[in-house]
């Protein structure tokens, strides 16, 4: 049984062999241990990998705490991973998304305006802090989907660049 995983944005592979597991990561590096896992409450596990002990806690969807470090992990079967890679082809348009729920304070650009990389596009306020959303690249504003005073949720499209 083999799984492809993406851990903190890097690919790795995990396979089970008898009572041990094998973890391949980086370029040709791998490690292998006998292991056991005991549940230790909801979403918690006491893991032994050979002699070493690990406290493992599922923090939230895809976030796993291991001995004080947090890893972001996605697990795929190999077919799923390939499909994902193909779907991620980049497009010519770039959507600027709200990074958090908040309120739009100012819109600093207009439709059809040419912008430089790093130029401020929109100011969103949350938790009393104002955050200026900057353009990730040079381009032209093809759509402004919000206005000052609007409440926005995380991931909402604010501006589209081309």
């Amino acid at each position, binding site marked *: 049984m083999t799984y492809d995983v993406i851990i903190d944005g890097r690919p790795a592979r995990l396979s089970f062999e008898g009572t041990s597991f094998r973890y391949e990561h980086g370029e040709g590096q791998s490690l292998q241990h006998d292991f*056991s896992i005991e549940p230790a409450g909801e*979403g918690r596990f006491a893991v032994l990998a050979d002699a070493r002990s690990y406290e493992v806690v599922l923090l939230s969807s895809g976030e796993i705490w291991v001995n004080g470090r947090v890893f972001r992990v996605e697990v795929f079967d190999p077919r799923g991973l390939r499909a994902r890679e193909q779907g991620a082809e980049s497009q010519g348009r770039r959507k600027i998304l709200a990074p958090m729920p908040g309120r739009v304070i100012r819109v600093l650009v207009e439709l059809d305006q040419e912008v430089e990389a790093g130029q401020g596009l929109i100011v969103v306020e949350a938790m009393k802090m104002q955050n200026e959303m900057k353009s990730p690249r040079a381009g032209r504003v093809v759509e402004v989907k919000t206005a000052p005073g609007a409440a926005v949720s995380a991931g909402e499209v604010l501006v589209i660049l081309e």
Partner: protein
Amino acid sequence: MFGKVLVANRGEIAVRIIRALREAGIASVAVFSDADRASLAVQMADEAAHLGPAAALESYLRIDKIINAARRHGAEAIHPGYGFLSENAEFADACQAAGIVFIGPPAGAIRRMGSKTEARKLAIGAGAPVVPGTESSVSDLDEARNVADRLGYPVLLKAAAGGGGKGMRRVDGEADLGAAIRDASSEAGRAFGNDEVYLEKLVLEPRHIEIQVLGDQHGHLIHLGERECSLQRRHQKVMEECPSPVMAEFSELRPRMGEAALKIARAAEYSNAGTLEFLVDRDRNFYFLEMNTRLQVEHPVTELATGIDLVQWQLRIAAGERLTIAQEDVSWSGCAIECRMYAEDPENQYVPSPGRITRLQEPSGPGIRLDSGVYEGWVVPMEYDPLLAKLAVWASSREGAVARMRRALQEYKIGGIRTNRAFFSEVLDDELFRAGQLSTAFLEQFFERRKERAADPEAEAVAALVAALALRKPADVSEARGSSEWLRSGREAELR
């Protein structure tokens, strides 16, 4: 002493004050907005009063609603905490007019120190050193240009009514001055209802050190030493300690700064707990910046180092009791460090990260003090400051305190929202931090020199292992081998 006190705040500081009230045998009344109905403070208090919608302007900043709640619940006094109405002289007046004790300084002292420009004048009059700058707010751009030219760039724009870095801007040249004044005024107006800003010479890479004072209503005033607050992001403190590492080499600095702080506090006719903020330059010159006429966020480090409970003394002093601690009775033991746990992403310009806390397990054990306002399942609201909790440690040496803080941070598990937990661990490992070489530029410079954290493939492998077992579909489970116990747990452990 009071029989019942209303806590006009929210979050961890409301919890802190409710705890003090319970220890003193005083009944507590929490107040809450729509967003805080199920907050930890509300659950812990003896009574609770609804104020209004989530927006602070409609709830925690509504003087009328808070006074009414105090009357309805029969509270004899109000503790304002920090932020919100804590430095609002009109609120202190309104309390007095309603026959309710405001737990803090007299309204007159809040007024005298509330405007930073007035506070500067008062400090100069008291013979304390101040940073060169304007003594009144700048009204137009031409005047600002002239002042900035005289001081020399870089200069710092600050909100006259401000605090917490809001409405503050560094300006490096004349070209940026107009935009900076506009932005700072707008932010100040939004945060404090007063858009006046003033100019100061920027002291480069200073330490930010503050002095805690405590005085009763009978004229007895003492200082409780300093807190080193140099580690800041966006001019907001993130980590504080007592004593300041600078005191190890220059022990005469504490009594000198303490004496300056007392001079200013006396001139302000101050009583109750207050804090005087200073900048300390590389040559150990210190300059008075401003006074915070309230309990500070970072008060626990002083409490840990001196053994003096500031909130208990605030209550006693407000009730008219005498402060029975003489200056020579105050001593400092060991080292205390505090990390402010914020719901924010330090890897992404500290963008706030409100939302549901899906997992929370807090550190404990020797030397740990945790002042938290959250619990597992709590939804951190977007409307307020992103402070979740203050993790403080005490040890007999700074080295020991650093090691203890590393250990405590390692035990801390917070899921569902981004926090600065891991970032603190990196700072604690930094050589300059360990050497105590701190300045307000420290964090910015740390970001430039920080190395990518060493990988830990063993822990990573375990994360992948558990993820594979917990995330996969039940149909796959039979294909893996091992003890039935972990197979079952793997099936059950659906990630939330």
